């Protein structure tokens, strides 16, 4: 019977799986597009760096901390007008992606900042000494050198996003995590609970593995 049951849930699980991929895919993309520059900004504007701007550094740092302090559910609600303006709806996976993105951006920014901090200061100085513009240094030194760390960080962010995406159910976002909560948790369906959690665990392991491999490939050190 549990097998039948699993089979019966498959179409829904399939849909949820793609919803999860959709949500975390969008959020990861957005957090990379926005978080990466923010992380770089946090680094290059720091004391002693080549674009030192303590004020900018502090303001950005504060905002990043601020977003990280707000409980996700509140963020979700606080963002409703913005979400509506941006994507024209406040429910469903797309709307959920907005909140997930906003939560992931500062997290990823911090991760990027940390990775870039690992770069040997000497390499940056060598680039400055060569007469490179800040933009060149960012694009051709910071990013390539921090690439393995940034990929690891993106993996970390992605896994956190999967965990967070379970809360997408609040705005009808769906996804595997929400399926686990709605059926497994609210409706005591252990078969679904376990099936969905196994799917989640596998997904996380695959992502971790892929992240590790990818990070190693780009690592030329």
């Amino acid at each position, binding site marked *: 019977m549990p097998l039948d049951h699993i089979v019966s849930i498959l179409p829904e699980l399939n849909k949820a799986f793609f919803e999860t991929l959709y949500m975390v895919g969008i959020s990861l993309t957005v957090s990379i597009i926005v978080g990466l520059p923010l992380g770089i900004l946090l680094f290059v504007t720091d004391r002693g760096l080549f674009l030192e701007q303590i004020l900018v550094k502090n303001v950005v740092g504060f905002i990043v901390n601020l977003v990280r302090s707000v409980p996700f559910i509140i963020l979700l609600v606080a963002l409703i007008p913005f979400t509506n303006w941006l994507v024209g709806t*406040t*429910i469903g996976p797309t709307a959920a992606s907005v909140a997930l993105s906003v939560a992931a951006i500062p997290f990823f920014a911090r991760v990027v900042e940390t990775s870039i901090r690992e770069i040997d200061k000497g390499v940056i100085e060598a680039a400055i000494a060569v007469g490179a513009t800040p933009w060149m240094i960012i694009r051709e030194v910071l990013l390539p050198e921090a690439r393995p760390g940034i990929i690891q960080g993106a993996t970390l962010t992605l896994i956190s996003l999967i965990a967070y995406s379970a809360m997408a*159910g*609040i*705005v*009808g976002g769906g996804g595997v995590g*929400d399926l686990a909560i*709605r059926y497994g948790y*609210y409706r005591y369906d252990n078969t679904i609970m376990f099936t969905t959690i196994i799917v989640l665990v596998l997904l996380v392991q695959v992502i971790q593995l892929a992240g590790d491999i990818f990070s190693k490939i780009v690592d030329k050190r």
Partner: protein
Amino acid sequence: GSDDSTSDSSESAAPEAEETKEVKIGATSGPYADMVTKAIKPGLEEKGYTVEVVEFSDYIVPNRALDNGDIQANLFQHKVYMENFAKENNMELSDLIVVPTAPMGIYSNVFASMDEIADGAEIAIPNDPTNAARAFLILEDEGLIKLDENVSPLTVSENDIVENVKNLQFVPIEAAQLPRSVEQVDLAAVPGNFALASDMDLLDALVLENMPDEYRNRVVVKGGEEETQLSKDIIEIVESAGFEEIIDAEFQGFGKPEWMENR
């Protein structure tokens, strides 16, 4: 630890030895927690209890906590849910008394009446079974859907719909989020407490829940504790005129149970 400290001082020899003067009452965040705080707690305190209201943002933990003895009473569920939950989880729960409950309503910014509902319309429903069951009941009453007869109200979901006349598209959403999503969907089944909290007018509903008492929320205690002094005191307070006055003043729109209407 604090539970024990009072028990031996006061009525340790009485048959209701487990009854303590220090009580915890659980409720879900929002109007029902407020109801306990504003309308029940003062009465209990007059009787010498120390009352702590524990707010839950969940529909499962409060019953588990009750069964576990972590709280002595809770207020958030209707009879059908309570009975099914007890059965499913092998615990005994008993209700003490039904309290005024805000009716769920179907709201829409798109359709002016239930008759106008278009084929394939999107309807937001609560994602928890307690509230979802009520939403499905309204729709069933309106002849829009038919539920599987064997389904337990505890686990009902849109998957248990056997007939969907207008091909409604269901969007399960966190109950408290529903008022915020009315504008986003064609229809939304909003629990009355959250509708009121968000300043919605219950009269705007296309249709309000036809609420038999078994779908009204009630104060629930662990099975076998119906006769304790605390239970008696709670019933006495809820039945008092003062309770109804507070309801009239602060919980307008809440549908009163039969016993309150008929006295």
